[in-house]
């Protein structure tokens, strides 16, 4: 008696009791579907985070100067000097001065993201100026009271005609010299286009010292070498590593990704408990089935079935049941993933694709078959060990 015979017998038994089989499989179905949706959600989240990070530039390093050095104070010129000295590793540099506070346009007040930057900042970030001009070196050097605004401010407060108008930031009146191209899909308050950039020299007059810089690297494959070179130069300057931090976007991305992965692992683990519960359900039903079919087992044994054939029959039936549950679970998981993609996309106004990975699907299927075999083993063992005489006279 080969595996195929057992398989066709198992299928026959499964088909002949559909409701029971479906209820037996329910735990496996739910578990597999849950694992697939959770893993898919994790993949989607990871993709989303990685997309938004790479739009911020994965070739940039961020330097934070935490406090004044014990012996020396780091000025903007010092950082430019370091970048120039390490031109092999470092490319462009821009101080970034974040100004908290409101932007006043006439009588209206809005809270946009206001940042003081250098003339290179737009090329570092890949921003394009759609109208007017960007910031220029002369603006920085002479601390001109000018600014470049994002598309949201332009549309919402100036009717798309911002160039040449003025607004007030931190008590300073700034003339708008340019408008950036729209970044996000939709213009909205607090979005990527609700921003304003002014020369860092002008900004530092309002906020004080410049303490943060964005530096680009010529080749992002050598990001860690570039980071090391920058750190060495800063260490040399301060003679201590207590006063600065250098972070890279790709490192942050890695950290975020590993956090998401951990989260997904924990959630998938919780979902997998349902698989174990499902396995126990299968064991339960198989035990009942062995009792119900005691007479059948006796008949088969009297007709020459060896213990291993009986065992094989029950194990394969359990494995088939849970494999079928696994397949249904995978289909439902895909269905739910597609639904989740729609819901998340419409709720968050962000493109987050819930995409189950082929590996997760294969694993879920493998685990469900494995569970069938594992939890089918005990009932099968029980069936195989039945004494044929007792089994034949069982009612």
């Amino acid at each position: 008696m080969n595996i195929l015979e057992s398989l066709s017998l198992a299928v026959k038994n499964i088909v002949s009791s559909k409701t029971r089989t479906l209820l037996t499989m329910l735990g496996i179905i739910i578990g597999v579907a849950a694992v697939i949706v959770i893993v898919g959600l994790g993949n989607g989240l990871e993709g989303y985070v990685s997309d938004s990070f790479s739009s911020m530039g994965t070739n940039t390093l961020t330097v934070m100067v935490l406090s004044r050095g014990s012996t020396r104070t780091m000025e903007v010129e010092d950082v430019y000097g370091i970048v120039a000295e390490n031109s092999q590793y470092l490319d462009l540099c821009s101080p970034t001065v974040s100004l908290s506070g409101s932007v006043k346009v006439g009588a209206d007040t809005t809270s946009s993201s206001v940042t003081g930057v250098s003339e290179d900042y737009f090329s570092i970030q890949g921003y394009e100026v759609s109208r007017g001009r960007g910031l220029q070196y002369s603006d920085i050097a002479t601390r001109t009271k000018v600014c470049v605004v994002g598309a949201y401010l332009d549309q919402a407060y100036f009717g798309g005609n911002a160039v040449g108008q003025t607004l007030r930031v931190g008590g300073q009146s700034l003339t708008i010299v340019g408008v950036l191209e729209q970044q996000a899909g939709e213009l909205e308050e607090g979005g990527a286009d609700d921003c304003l950039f002014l020369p860092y020299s002008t900004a530092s007059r309002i906020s004080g010292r410049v303490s943060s810089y964005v530096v680009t690297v010529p080749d992002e494959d050598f990001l860690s070498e570039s980071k090391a070179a920058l750190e060495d130069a800063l260490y040399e300057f301060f003679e201590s590593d207590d006063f600065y931090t250098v972070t890279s976007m790709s490192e942050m991305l890695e950290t975020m990704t590993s956090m998401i992965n951990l989260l997904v692992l924990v959630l998938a683990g919780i979902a997998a408990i349902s698989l174990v519960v499902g396995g126990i359900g299968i064991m339960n039903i198989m035990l009942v089935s062995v009792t119900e079919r005691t007479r059948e087992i006796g008949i088969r044994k009297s007709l020459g079935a060896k213990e291993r054939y009986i065992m094989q029959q029950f194990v394969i039936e359990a494995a088939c049941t849970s494999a079928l549950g696994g397949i249904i679970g995978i289909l439902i998981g895909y269905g739910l993933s597609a639904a989740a993609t729609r819901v998340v996309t419409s709720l968050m106004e962000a493109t987050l694709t819930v995409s189950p990975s082929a590996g997760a699907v294969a694993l879920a299927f493998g685990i469900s078959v494995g569970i069938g075999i594992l939890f089918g083993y005990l009932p099968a063992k029980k069936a195989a060990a039945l004494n044929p005489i007792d089994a034949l006279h069982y009612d």
Partner: protein
Amino acid sequence: MNALIEFQDVCKYYHMGDTTVVAADHISFQIRKGEFVAIVGSSGSGKSTCMNIIGCLDVPSEGTYLLDGRDVGQMNKNKLAEIRNALLGFIFQQYNLLPKLNLVENVEVPLIYAGVPRAERRERARIALEMVGLGDKLQHKPSQLSGGQQQRVSIARALVGEPAVILADEPTGALDSKTGREVLSLLQELHAAGNTVVLITHDNSIAVQAQRIIRLEDGRVVYDGPSNAPEAVVTPRAAGTGGGASA
């Protein structure tokens, strides 16, 4: 001619708590190939134990059982299953058909375990069913048949593997007398065709259909001889007291 079935001082003990029940007490007999033998006895006489041992469903506690020259008592469960499959065909009182399978699928079960390929299996099952007169009901389920028809399916199943011994355990017990007679005449046809048939029954009127009767009482053989002898149907003890009752 060597014996096909040979019991040499076969004993079977069952332990029930502290007491030991002797179900078979030094039973010895031989059955040759082509014989039609009835093993008769009332309940508790040891005939079921005998049938289980002959059918290789159980092994003797003591003594030797040789089936076709092979010592069954020394075999493990797997070997016993192989022997049952190759040498024995069972006919049960309750037919013991598998209710979810159709007639062909029921009859082919022994061939599945013998490793016969599917097409050959189907063909042999069909021939066996035609032999018992059910060739027109191959796809029926057992529940769609009468008791007599079901018993004929079980006879077809017993025959299909061409066993050395056909072992019938109260084959007419669940049937009315007319269909019972039909089944018995089928067994006689099988015997006439050269098969060895062992019939286990409590009913003397059934037993006399066989050539030879082995009568058991309290786990011992009390008569072994032709079925047409007067002692065959009257127990010696009953004859001794002049009762003349037939078991």
